């Protein structure tokens, strides 16, 4: 039994993402590093064999998912309710939380210019965000952060997959001082599609 086969069997039988540590529980011979190696080998072999599925990283876990080109076929079986698509208000609020976490409701509302209690409740119900602490100041306000489910929902490996945040205040001063004839640099949209990267995990600090 090679490690790839053990990892493959475990991934195959799983309904959700598994971390390398969780996958390593399958056998005493496995550790997290060995699991990552095995996953890389599996990915390669799936690519070579042109399989309809691949091992993808979602947050800190791995899961076997179909490749996107098969979506039109699978969508014909739309019988099971899937995770919801988020509203514009929810996406906007999530964007703010993703960059500014931990962040309280009042700060979110300052950015959005609108009340945000209900959208925060919705995001909490969908487990996209969670309370990560309490702030200083009056009433020790709740502070929110994004969850593992958030990463899974958007197919991110970690928060680095979000576009680079600009230092808005700085760019404003510069551009404003320069006569302000150009807008601020817009963030580069992330055009990746859940790329099963095999670039080293060390880079991401594991």
């Amino acid at each position: 039994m090679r490690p790839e086969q053990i990892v493959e069997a475990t991934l195959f039988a799983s309904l959700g993402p598994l971390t390398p540590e969780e996958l390593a529980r399958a056998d005493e011979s496995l550790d997290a590093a060995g699991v990552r190696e095995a996953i890389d080998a599996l990915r390669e072999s799936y690519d070579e064999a042109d399989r309809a599925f691949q091992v993808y990283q979602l947050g800190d876990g791995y899961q076997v998912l179909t490749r996107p080109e098969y979506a039109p076929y699978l969508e014909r079986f739309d019988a099971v309710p899937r995770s919801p698509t988020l509203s514009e208000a929810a996406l906007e609020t999530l964007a703010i939380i993703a960059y500014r976490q931990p962040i309280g409701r009042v700060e979110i509302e300052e950015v959005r210019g609108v009340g945000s209690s209900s959208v925060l409740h919705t995001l909490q119900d969908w487990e996209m965000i969670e309370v990560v602490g309490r702030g200083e100041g009056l009433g020790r306000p709740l502070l929110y952060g994004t969850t593992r489910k958030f990463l899974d929902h958007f197919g991110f490996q970690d928060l680095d997959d979000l576009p680079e945040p600009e230092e808005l205040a700085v760019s404003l001063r510069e551009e404003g001082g320069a006569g302000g004839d150009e807008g601020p640099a817009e963030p580069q949209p992330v055009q990746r599609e859940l790329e099963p990267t095999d670039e080293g995990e060390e880079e991401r600090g594991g």
Partner: protein
Amino acid sequence: MSRAPAVPVPGRAPGHLGPEPFVVELDRFRGPLDLLLHLIRSQDIDIFDIPIARITAQFQVALDAGLERLELDRAGEFIEMASTLVRIKAQLLLPRNEEPDWEEDPRADLVRRLLEYEYFLDVARVLLGAEADRRRHFAKGYVEPRPAPEASLPELETGREEFLEAVRSMPEPGPEASHRAPTRSVTVEEKMSLLGRLLEKARRLAFEKLFRPWGTRPHAVAALMACLEMARQQLIRIEQTVPFGSIWIFPRPRLVEGGEAEERGDEPRAAGAAEGA
């Protein structure tokens, strides 16, 4: 992220720069910042040099058109921004230094907020794209293994034969109409004690036995009520194996063994009712 499209007022050129170039539906904007950005971006206004008077006028026109359709909270958010705009407009009218310093520009804070908000709109657009990409990947369990089982109960199909059979089994119209005999009133309690006594002798009892001999509607109603009441008290168990089939009544242990049933059976009124059969 679709923004409410700017609908040109009929008869005006789209590029018209007058005070009210757009008809905007307020409730399609997520808030005052969204509306402001729309006004600025759709008119190609330099965000670092916002013509506050013009934008304020346009903002107020939009509010006049749609404010009353908004909930109070949301309306308040727009009004707050309108007052901010008016305040900035007033500050701009005050005498200023020869060399304008950006930091002292009354518009600076608003511009910062607009850019910040716009930035997060861009991020939200990225999230929208990522969400769509993610939804093109399917996990195990997505396709159901077999057609979902019928959730509904089997249909109660009654054929003509069954219907006719049911009609035939209906008791003949009671004699009370022709005989003018006073209808003997029957109480639920009487039926309950009758049922109790009958169940002492039999292990099960057909529902019809409780009223068929009397053949009148009050008896049938009282029998039904009695059964339901005793079932509620868990003294009996009622079974019907097929739709419209016979209804069978079974005693529950307490009824036979406990003293309760016997007491009921000894009630004089109940005896009278039974004799009346």
